[in-house]
């Protein structure tokens, strides 16, 4: 309790003060809000200030969403909703032309643009027809989803497959969600069209793999076997090395997948060694330093290193496997990047606990695939804009 009182006192002493006319100052307070609720009192004051400023604070507030943390976005969103509610109750209209222009501005935060769009849509349902068809390659996955849905609807209503195919192709280019990609791919394949789902999502199909190493009683998760020791010395393991495995000497071997969703199935392609672990290694070439997300799906425990640095680890077995189950933000360097994945199987005997597999893709934060620079394809599938 003493700690709590001291914390409250300290927080009170260092709270930033927002002047009565200082809208930018209030927005700054919200943008800088920290985890742990350490500055909630200041954030509440800032929201109160913005609410008092009314609709004139709306656009600066919305511009403040850009590059803000999710926590800050939530504070700013609540401020926006409070202002919008108050304006509506007072019978005042929101500045529609300015807000509509804001929605179209792809330099602004996708969260803020979507918030404004849905606010406007309540009083102007026609906004969907005016805006969504142009948003197929938008930076916001939600706008893309709506635009893709319109195209799928249009294509599926056409009686002639030849007419529908270009529409499905267009929709495929914008789709970033699995359900829409599946729907479109099925329609195109019914029309005998080639569809490369693996490339569309940016899955990594080519790996080198070594194992099995011992993971009886789950103890191997914490043990640094040869490949892990290798990357302590350099960013990449020695693919010519031979290691002491679970039952014998083991060496790296190539493994590839043709699965649409990039699943490397160790149980089927190699063997479901119970109580074991494997290391899988691949490289990805980037034409520049860039922010990216490595998205992983697996029912097994795992650790992931990028260029020798452990970026995340998770010790959990058989709680499902889904596309984009884990999202790991990383910075990729210009040139070759090494990904080392440790993938662990336990000894559960239930039917549903036999999968030993993983799928990995590299994309941007909207879910649009990033492709390695050696590819002849664009470096970002279907994005239209680089950000």
């Amino acid at each position: 309790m003493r700690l709590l009182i001291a914390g409250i006192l300290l927080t009170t002493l260092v709270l930033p003060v927002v002047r009565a006319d200082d809208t930018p100052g209030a927005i700054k307070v919200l943008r800088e809000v920290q985890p742990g609720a350490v500055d909630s009192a200041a954030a509440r004051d800032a929201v109160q200030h913005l609410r008092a400023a009314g609709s004139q604070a709306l656009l600066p507030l919305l511009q403040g969403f850009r590059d803000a943390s999710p926590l800050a976005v939530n504070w700013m969103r609540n401020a926006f909703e409070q202002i919008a509610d108050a304006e509506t109750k007072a019978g005042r209209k929101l500045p529609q032309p300015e807000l509509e222009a804001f929605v179209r501005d792809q330099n602004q935060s996708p969260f803020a643009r979507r918030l404004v769009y849905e606010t406007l849509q309540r009083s102007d349902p026609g906004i969907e027809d005016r805006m969504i068809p142009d948003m197929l390659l938008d930076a916001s996955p939600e706008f893309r989803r709506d635009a893709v849905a319109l195209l799928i609807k249009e294509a599926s209503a056409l009686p002639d497959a030849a007419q529908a195919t270009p529409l499905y192709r267009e929709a495929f280019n914008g789709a970033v969600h699995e359900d829409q990609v599946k729907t479109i791919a099925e329609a195109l394949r019914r029309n005998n069209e080639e569809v490369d789902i693996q490339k569309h999502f940016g899955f990594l199909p080519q790996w080198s793999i070594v194992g099995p190493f011992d993971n009886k009683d789950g103890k191997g998760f914490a043990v640094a076997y040869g490949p892990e020791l290798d990357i302590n010395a350099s960013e990449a393991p020695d693919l010519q090395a031979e290691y002491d495995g679970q039952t014998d000497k083991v060496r790296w071997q190539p493994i590839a997948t043709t699965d649409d969703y990039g699943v490397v199935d160790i149980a089927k392609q190699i063997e479901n060694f119970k109580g074991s672990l494997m290391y899988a290694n691949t490289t990805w070439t980037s034409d520049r330093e860039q922010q990216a997300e490595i998205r992983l799906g697996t029912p097994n425990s795992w650790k992931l290193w990028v260029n020798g640095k452990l970026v995340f680890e998770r010790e959990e077995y058989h709680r499902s496997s889904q596309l984009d189950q884990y999202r790991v933000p990383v910075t990729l360097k210009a040139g070759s990047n090494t990904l080392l994945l440790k993938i662990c199987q336990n000894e559960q005997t239930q039917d549903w606990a036999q999968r030993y597999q993983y799928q990995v893709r590299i994309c941007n934060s909207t879910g649009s695939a990033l492709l390695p620079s050696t590819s002849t394809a664009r470096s970002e599938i279907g994005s239209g804009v680089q950000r």
Partner: protein
Amino acid sequence: MKWIITFLILTAATLPTLTAADWRQFRGNAANSVATGETLPTELSGDTIAWKTKLPGRGLSGPIVVGGQVFVSASSGYAQDRLHVISIDAATGNQQWEREFIATGRTLTHDKMCNATPTMASDGQRVFAFFSSNDLICLDLAGNLQWFRGFGSEFPNASNSLGMSSSPVVIGRTVIVQVESDAESFACGVDVESGATIWHIARPRAANWTSPSILPATDQQAALVLLQSSKGLTAVDPISGAIVWDFDQGASTIPSATVDSGSIVIPSNGLTAIRPARDNTFEQLWNSSSISPGTSSPVVVDGWAFALNSAGVLSAGDTKTGERLWQLRLRGSFSSTPITANGYLYLFNEDGNAFVVKPEKDKGIIVSELDLAEKILCSPGAANGALYVRSDEHLFKIAERQ
């Protein structure tokens, strides 16, 4: 220091008293599924649906009631990453306000669940919305954000790909959350006003979907929060986070313990009843493997211990001995926890059928049924003579026609 103590005393003095007519958290104010003092309609029919109100997205969270407001959470979006908190006028069913946030933690769940699975809680002045993504959001009753804790980003490994469901409870000035998974587990007490962590304790690293229960204060012992896991049940001081005693004989990871008249009935090897003693120990009263709950938590009231399994078999036991007295087969599958009011049980199956059951000495009698024709997985709430229950699509108020 004196002025701080004076301030704290004044603050404590002005805290709202618990209104019996409120239903402030999962399984009610005492987290035991008993709607004390409530008389709810027993003859359910279409006429007893006072109103139904459209809800956004999806939700398994139950409604809570504070004064004249009904609060419910929901989640929406392709990734279930949009978090909704909605206030509805209990009298009319009209939406008063809706606030939306983005999830800061993982939002994946099993298809049957969704991000809005935990039920909200309230201290009477604020509401606390908790989500599978481990986002804990505090709003005042007018929808103004008071604080936001993104436990999903603060503790990124404390998640479960099948989803999290533990509902928070409020004891005094502390809101308590239990976040347990195979990869990382903890429980913490958060100050209701500031959102600051008061205490944080490590918990067993194992998947767990149970919710905290409350052991009410007695003359000898302040109220304790009861944290259940596969290891058992741990009694924790809600002010300091100190462990007071530990029942270590294992327990279920889905249905949660319940408390009645100082005894605790734990879903452990069927049901196990224990009674805490003054010296921070406890004695085991009975164990019954023939009364075993499924997903629903047990309900204990008036000498009965009820357990509902997932296939809809309601078992009634004697709380003195644990002896099973009778069973009643209902229809359909059940996920929600029943509630009890004025000598009746109210149970909702997953198909949206409501059952009112009158327990008697040697049998249970279905008094009435109502088909709401929507999937219901949440546990209902009761306040001011009305029953509140939600599907993904709607919030229903069930009450006697005025």
